[in-house]
């Protein structure tokens, strides 16, 4: 029994097995469980068709509220986190003094655990003995003091600030790598031709950095929409539902309500939203490149 096998296919067999075992199979299982009512323990599963999806999409306002919260944090991160990352990357790219030290310092927050970061900021934003209120008092703004993470007006924005503080280092490193790939000769030529700093940024840096911007934006969207650890260690989704995000809702259904099937359906809906967002982002960047 002899069979002709192209050797190239043999080389990819281990990767295909790993992919099937740890990616495709769990995904298919989640897809399947979305159609079943299952508590995660019992051997009994009951087919409920599309009713869980129907409930999530049409009758679960908290779910869509949590989606909006994640979107709000994402919008802030896209603007401020990436803006700060770009600014700092450009400063370091200019060869400022102690540039290497800044690289290390700016990359420290991303390597810390989200839970640790959350606990540190919990202490900073604490209403009774927090550093932030202390600083406000020092500069004469003591009347603004509050429990920042327990106030519904400020809780979500504070969580976004913590997330951005933790995340800007990633953008910084990627953007800096992108900036350093731009040939210096282009800048020198533009200067000789009399281009201003703004012109150089607009006509050279931005077009050449476009693929890097797209990458950073996609990573920011995907990373921020899936925010979880910082929420758990700061507000636990509260006060009320004010800082609930999709992942906290999924975990709550899975672990605290024992609705595994429903949580799987939520994950699928959430996954679909992320795919739509990513594809839209890609399309938009392709369009911008053409323009």
């Amino acid at each position, binding site marked *: 029994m002899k069979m002709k*096998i192209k050797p190239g296919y043999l080389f990819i067999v281990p990767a295909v097995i790993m992919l099937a075992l740890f990616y495709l199979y769990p995904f298919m299982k989640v897809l399947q469980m979305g159609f079943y009512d299952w508590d995660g*323990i019992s051997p009994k599963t009951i087919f*409920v068709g599309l009713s869980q999806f129907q409930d999530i999409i049409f009758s679960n306002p908290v779910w869509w509220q949590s989606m909006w919260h994640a979107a709000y944090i994402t919008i802030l991160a896209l603007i401020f986190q990436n803006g700060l990352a770009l600014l700092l990357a450009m400063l370091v790219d200019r060869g400022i003094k102690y540039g290497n030290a800044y690289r290390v310092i700016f990359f420290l927050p991303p390597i810390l655990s989200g839970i640790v970061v959350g606990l540190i900021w919990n202490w900073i934003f604490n209403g009774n003995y927090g550093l932030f209120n202390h600083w406000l008092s020092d500069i004469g703004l003591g009347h603004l003091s509050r*429990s920042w993470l*327990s106030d519904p007006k400020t809780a979500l924005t504070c969580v976004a600030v913590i997330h951005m503080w933790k995340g800007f280092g990633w953008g910084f490193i990627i953007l800096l790598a992108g900036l350093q790939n731009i040939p210096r000769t282009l800048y020198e030529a533009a200067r000789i031709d009399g281009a201003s700093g703004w012109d150089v940024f607009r006509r050279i840096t931005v077009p050449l950095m476009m693929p890097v911007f797209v990458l950073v934006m996609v990573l920011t969207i995907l990373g921020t929409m899936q925010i979880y650890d910082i929420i758990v260690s700061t507000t636990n989704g509260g006060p*009320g*539902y004010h800082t609930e995000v999709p992942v906290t809702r999924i975990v709550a259904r899975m672990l605290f*309500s*024992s609705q595994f099937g429903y949580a799987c359906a939520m994950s699928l809906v959430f996954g679909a939203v992320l795919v739509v967002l990513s594809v839209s982002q890609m399309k938009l960047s392709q369009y911008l490149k053409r323009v």
Partner: protein
Amino acid sequence: MYINIRNILASLLIILSIAGCSGKPAQNIPSKEIIVWHWLSDRSDAFDALARKYKVQTGINVRFELYAPTMVYMSKVRAAAQTNTLPDIYGVHMERKDFASLIDGGLVADLTPYMDADNSAWKKSFFQAGLIMNTFQEGNQYDVKPGIYGVPIDINNIQLIYNLDLLKKAGWDTSRLPSTWQEFISLGDMLKKAGIQGMASGWGEPWMILCFADNMAWNIMGKEKVLATIRGEVPYTDPDWIKVFSLFRQMKDHGLVSDGIVTMVNKEAEQDFANERAAIAFNGSWCINVYESMNPDLKLAVAMPPKADPKNPMYIWCGTTSFVVNGRSQMKEEAIKFLQWLTDCNQQTELAVATNNIPSGKMCTDVLKGPIRQFTEGMEYAVHPRLLPVEEYPLVTEAFQKGVQSIIIGEETPEEVAKAVQEMKERETKKAERFKRIKR
């Protein structure tokens, strides 16, 4: 390139055979070993010491495996239940519904015959509340065969803990603690005036708020009306429930809750109380260990929550740390014998002394002193939702908890929250009925 499939298969067979034979030699595997999973990091050393003692007495090796924190433990048990890899004995830290599912899957042994043996000697040794939490009664809503399925190792209850120094500082006469709601409010006013934060508790977690609310609800309207609400016969918009919700607003207005309580996890609340940043704590009996380790100079007193209706009794929540025996374990009989030994008064006393927790054996509490003793006295008034024949929908309890948080932060009124909780109740009831129809 031609490849001989037979050769590949033969090679694979050889490799697998070699791999299969390369495990530990059989003589290295202990002949008898009971494996116990738990999440109780504070009791780990005491358990290990007892395991060593058991080995000396019986020759049987017992290995306690700690998986903490709780969430990690819960996930591990779930995963092991799905893959049938649960150990001989494991701690149950889950909802009643999940406990029922484990029993349904044959993963929990029915201990009733062992409890009933020798004129129910084993059964009679426990605090009733601890045992009932491991019992499924006749006609339970999960259709589980009636019986006792778990063994309480220690028990706890949740009460108010006062920092006597801070109360004195606020001008409160510490010879008696508030026993009525009015006195509680007066204490809050005094603390507020003295600039001392009121109560620290893990009200950012789902269950702590529910616990306090349940205490007050039982006091205001009694058990039957609470049960009728869960059964859907009384709405959450009933005036008695509005009264329960209003208590939280009063607590906020009179300085009885510390700033940030609505997002506080219990660990943080424990730190605040231990470091004297809050005068009152609402916490379980396990907290005494925590406070003593953080601040040994703390002067504490424990008391039941104050009565909102002085005519009715006050009840408190109790809990238990329970172990179950895996129904599919090959060491089932040995595991049960070990649990009988572990809950004997000698071992219970050792455990109580080493861990400062309330033993599950009601005759073994003499060794307890100080605040933990005060907690023990509260066991007479202990109840737990698990003792009730019906259980509220998880999303209704979530809406309840989130609603109370909204009342405390002044975002919603008690009436608005009551309406929202009732709407969730109706939604979940309809959904459950729809699911029932689909299941049929």
